[in-house]
């Protein structure tokens, strides 16, 4: 650097990270004047590279994490909604696999999306699937351990559920919409409430439609209630054999203590 340039540089405003950061997610914010090109002109489009990198990478992370929401909204609408979200809610951790935890709730605050009432719950299902994907491994319970148990002992037993186990309850057909959106040859969703269980038998999370009372049953077990208390919580008409079969078959139960 020449002597003159050095003097100019020394007298020009510095660019604290606050200032660099402030203009990144806000295109109306002026680019700090201490950012220059090689001819000592204002950085202009050169700064815009960083703006673009940040916005596009966060938007792509949301599109990857919420594929059904992205498809339901279409690319243009999704990019707009994701852009609004990421500016108000940049990640709070470098571990991007968990980015977007507040996206489902955010979708429900947007008046333009109020006609898509199911969208927030579809997003909750996608978030649950992603959490399940990264959850700790846990070997499934050997069903033989349930055999030979006295009924009273079984009713008092507490079940440990796999860390990947998630419940999503929805007044909308959230699972049917998710399947219809992402998977081939699925029936058109019927208007109904759906409660969903997410399990991860090995590495691939899978959603299952729960029978009446199933969500209450699983949530009770998850909170540490005894088997008997969880059955009571499920209510009348609860199909226990179906529910227990599903949990055992998908490796959702990992242990029991009597």
């Amino acid at each position, binding site marked *: 650097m020449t002597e003159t340039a050095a003097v100019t540089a020394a007298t020009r405003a510095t660019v*604290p990270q606050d200032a660099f950061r402030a203009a990144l997610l806000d295109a109306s914010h002026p680019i700090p004047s201490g950012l220059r090109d090689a001819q000592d002109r204002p950085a202009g489009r*050169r700064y815009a590279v960083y703006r673009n990198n940040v916005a596009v990478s966060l938007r792509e992370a949301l599109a990857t994490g919420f594929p059904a929401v992205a498809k339901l909204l279409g690319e243009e609408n999704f990019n707009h909604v994701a852009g609004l979200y990421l500016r108000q809610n940049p990640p709070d951790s*470098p571990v991007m696999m968990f980015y977007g935890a507040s996206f489902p709730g955010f979708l429900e605050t947007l008046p333009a999306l109020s006609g898509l009432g199911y969208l927030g719950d579809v997003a909750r299902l996608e978030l649950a699937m992603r959490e399940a994907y*990264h959850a700790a491994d846990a070997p499934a319970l050997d069903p033989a351990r349930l055999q030979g148990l006295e009924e009273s002992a079984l009713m008092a037993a507490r079940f440990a559920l796999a860390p990947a186990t998630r419940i999503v309850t929805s007044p909308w057909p959230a699972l049917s919409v998710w399947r219809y959106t992402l998977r081939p040859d699925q029936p058109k969703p019927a208007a109904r409430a759906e409660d969903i269980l997410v399990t991860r038998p090995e590495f691939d999370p899978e959603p299952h439609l729960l029978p009446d009372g199933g969500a209450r049953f699983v949530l009770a077990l998850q909170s540490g209630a005894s088997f008997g208390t969880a059955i009571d919580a499920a209510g009348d008409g609860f199909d226990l054999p179906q529910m227990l079969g599903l949990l055992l078959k998908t490796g959702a139960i990992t242990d029991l203590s009597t």
Partner: protein
Amino acid sequence: MYDLSPSLPPLPGVGYKPQHFAALMDDPAPVGWLEIHAENYMGDGGRPLAQLNALAERFPISVHGVGLSIGGAEPLDRDHLARLKTLVDRINPASFSEHLAWSTHDSHFLNDLLPLPYTAATLARVADHIALVQDTLGRQMLLENPSSYLAFAESDWSETDFLKELARRTGCGLLLDVNNVFVSATNLGYAPQGYIDAFPLDAVGEIHLGGHDEDEDDHGLPLLIDSHGRAVADPVWALLDITLDRTGARPLLIEWDTDVPDWPVLAEEARRAEAALSRVSAGVKA
């Protein structure tokens, strides 16, 4: 100062992408080592960690962090550093590297490698951060030169002197990204070879290569973007040859992070890297 073993072999490696898992495990001699991005393996379990365990039995692994924000104005995120230590302790990688850049400010992670001015104040801060990382991990780290799109008026250190002084103060090694050199030199109007001439090559523990995109600035001047989304450009291969003539064979990584191709395309890039390493190992000048 720190235990330097195990270290990466002076062979071609590739940035690991899950879609290449089967190809890597099935190929008897695909590459000499793999790089993983640390932050993608900070979940509690599932397929990512299972694949990493399987890969680590087969390949030397380089853990490459993209989220420590070593160039940040704020103290390092201790929770993140602890997560990193858990990962490093778990797989005992052949190398750990991070960037001369920042990505977190005011508790917000911006998911990009952002630039910093090179001054006495930033030098002292970055050196403190590197020292903390090395103390926490109990190993030497490598610090990577960035891709630059702009300059800070306040900078009064050259990037090469800045890196050299960081290595001297902290004992860290350097990761020389030759594509970043080419991108920065083009964007900031200097000769890439001059950068290599000024670089403290003795400290180089690893070399990176990746593809870049071409754009223009407001004045119609070339503006190269470090996209890692295509094959390595020919002038970058030429700059690699010049670099290897000075350094000798070094662990050499092909990075391809966006628009990731099928394995054969990436393997072809790795073979080209292998040819460059073979040439210098045989003592043939470029």
